[in-house]
């Protein structure tokens, strides 16, 4: 398993993308978007930034399948924690006392 060396240019691109993302998310926070768009925009930008860090800074894009599986399982279990807990909170009102 020879290890992949990511060129500096890639790191620089990702770094700039992260900075742009930060500026955009702060800028967008001051606008009053309808519905829950503010939350969605902020979380989407954060997720994109996190994905970039994971894929490039943490080399997951170039890593063995096992690392992918580990990352995916962490997200999956977070999903379980959230989905099943919230399934309680979001359906409590369905049946009146």
């Amino acid at each position, binding site marked *: 398993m020879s290890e992949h060396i990511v060129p500096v240019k890639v790191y620089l691109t990702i770094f700039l993308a992260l900075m742009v993302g930060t500026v955009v998310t702060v800028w967008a926070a001051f606008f009053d978007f309808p519905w829950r768009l503010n939350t969605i925009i902020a979380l989407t930008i954060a997720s994109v930034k996190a994905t970039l860090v994971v894929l490039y800074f*943490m080399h997951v894009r170039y890593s063995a399948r096992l690392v992918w599986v580990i990352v995916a399982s962490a997200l999956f279990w977070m999903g379980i924690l959230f989905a099943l807990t919230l399934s309680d909170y979001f359906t409590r009102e369905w049946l009146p006392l």
Partner: protein
Amino acid sequence: MTESSVAIDHATSHPALQHHFENMEQQREAGTIGMWVFLVTEIMFFGGMFLAYTLYRSYYPAAFAAASNHLDITLGAINTAVLIVSSFTMALAVYGTQVGRTRMQNICLFLTLVLGLTFLGIKAVEYRSKYEDRLIPGRLIPGREFGPQVAEANDTDPHKLHLRDGASVRQVEMFYWIYFAMTGMHALHMVIGAGLLTVILILSLRGRFSPEYHSPVEISGLYWHFVDIVWIFLFPLLYLLGRHVH
């Protein structure tokens, strides 16, 4: 007989090879996977707090918006940038080690450490202002319980709490508890990361790492990037959401 042959095996290999590994490749793989598995536990650790945040934000939206607006967005944004730069320098440090550019490796490690400490410094400034506004929840600080001054309708004093939409101080306290729990836990991870980087930097200055043996740098990098990612989520969740209702 066999004892010496084992010894010879290891003697011909890299001095950093531990006795129970067959070769450097296996050792590096174990280290990397180990760190990833550890990061999984970290994600779950923060997961519980993110869940609590989600729940109470949906319970008390007005209070969370009001409390969030009391945070210093400038310092928060600067800190985000500081961490991103530090992640970048950390990535470059790993690169430097991989290709054997020792100078780059040392400088970048040093920069990462300095940036990490900068983050903690700024965080301390923020905490201090919360302390002055009596926003540290509960009896966390003995003798200085939670008790912010609530601003009247036309009062613009930034040190007072601007409650609107009928939010109660109790609910604001809930926000601040979650804020301190999450950022405090994050800061604790930063402190551990800074300690780790100090050790790595010292070893690096002693010339311990090379393209053949760089997994400690790489593994510390993974940890550092993870702490960065946590902040990438904390920043919008704590500082930004609700900003628009101001």
